[in-house]
């Protein structure tokens, strides 16, 4: 796996997990935003990951179009 992919996946995971960890102490009956963060941060992380995969695909498609054709 390319270094860039590893960095992005790590970033996405951080975005997903960090807020939950930071606010974990808040999770108790009556906690408001903290509970929501447990749900929303992973969603944002997943969307960021999808966006990154789309960007990678665009790059890959563009690269393959530019490969020189071998003529018989």
């Amino acid at each position, binding site marked *: 796996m390319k270094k860039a992919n590893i960095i992005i996946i790590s970033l996405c995971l951080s975005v997903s997990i960090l807020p939950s960890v930071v606010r974990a102490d808040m999770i108790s009956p009556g906690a408001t935003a903290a509970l929501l963060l447990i749900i929303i941060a992973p969603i944002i992380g997943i969307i960021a990951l999808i966006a990154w995969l*789309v960007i990678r695909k665009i790059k890959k498609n563009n690269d393959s*179009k530019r490969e020189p054709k071998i003529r018989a």
Partner: protein
Amino acid sequence: MPSDSKKNLTVYGLSHAAIDASCAAVAFSLLSSKSITNDYFIQLVIMYNVIAFGSQTLVGLLVDKYRCPKLSAISGSVITASAIPVSFLSPLYAIILAGIGNALFHVGGGTISLNLTKNKAAAPGIFVAPGALGLLIGTLYGKSGSFTAWPLLIIIAILCALMYYTKYPEINYKTDEKINTNYFESIILLLLMTIVARSVIGSVVVLPWKSDIFLLVTLTSGIVLGKAFGGIIGDKYGWQKVGVISLLISAPLLAFGAAIPEAAILGIFLFNFTMPITLVAISNTLPGRPGFSFGLTTLALIIGVLPTYAGAGSFMSQSHSVFAIIISSAIVLYYALFLYSRKPNV
């Protein structure tokens, strides 16, 4: 700018203000009517932000695939309008509808604005700018205690009709244009990082004088004019020069002058210059995908507010943190636009 483009900008810019005003009015009317608790209000606002900003990347992919920006903008407006009467029945459903409608409208309108002045930042800046004004009007209207559905419903209906009858420009969906393959991901990542930084600053800077209505209106005008002029001035004198210099000047003004209205308003005005520049630079890096490009920028915006939601806002709002974030953002923007301006490999 051709007259058709001006017409489109007027219609979609006004619609942008109306949609953002409606969303803010719905949210704040729920709070002022005491139909929900303060805690529940915070939950709903976070949920709204995630739906409205987080989903635009996915909505953008769909709008690009089916090539339907006008349908997206009009349906978004209708869904947002439907949130207004629903807010009297169910706060949760109203917020969900407002979020979905807002996302659809922004992607549709954003796609059209990105194609009004090809590869230039002026039109998208003018399209995005009225949003801040709409938010202010909607917030004041929602909080006023005299919130009623019909004025906003009539305005949105008229704007929907105008959007329907306004011929939008040809949208560039050609995905086979040359891209800067050497630095492709780096350019996008660095540009998104500057947007994240802008969002962080927008959510953490404390302006203690904001309760004064005159100063609040002036501040909002600074945001609106900053976004609008950022694109125009950037196109004229160069994105890199204008974007980086404006950030560097805004850093001390926002970091150390936040308590002084004049300094902070000037800082906010300059700070917003980069908004259209980063948006169009991303869109130009991803040719033929205007909806996805627009969505990426809003995804970066929501990532930027996550630290505040997570409780890190108080640390980041300190003067030295604000200064460091803006200066870092200027350096990152400089490098991103430096890579962007290098010619693509053939």
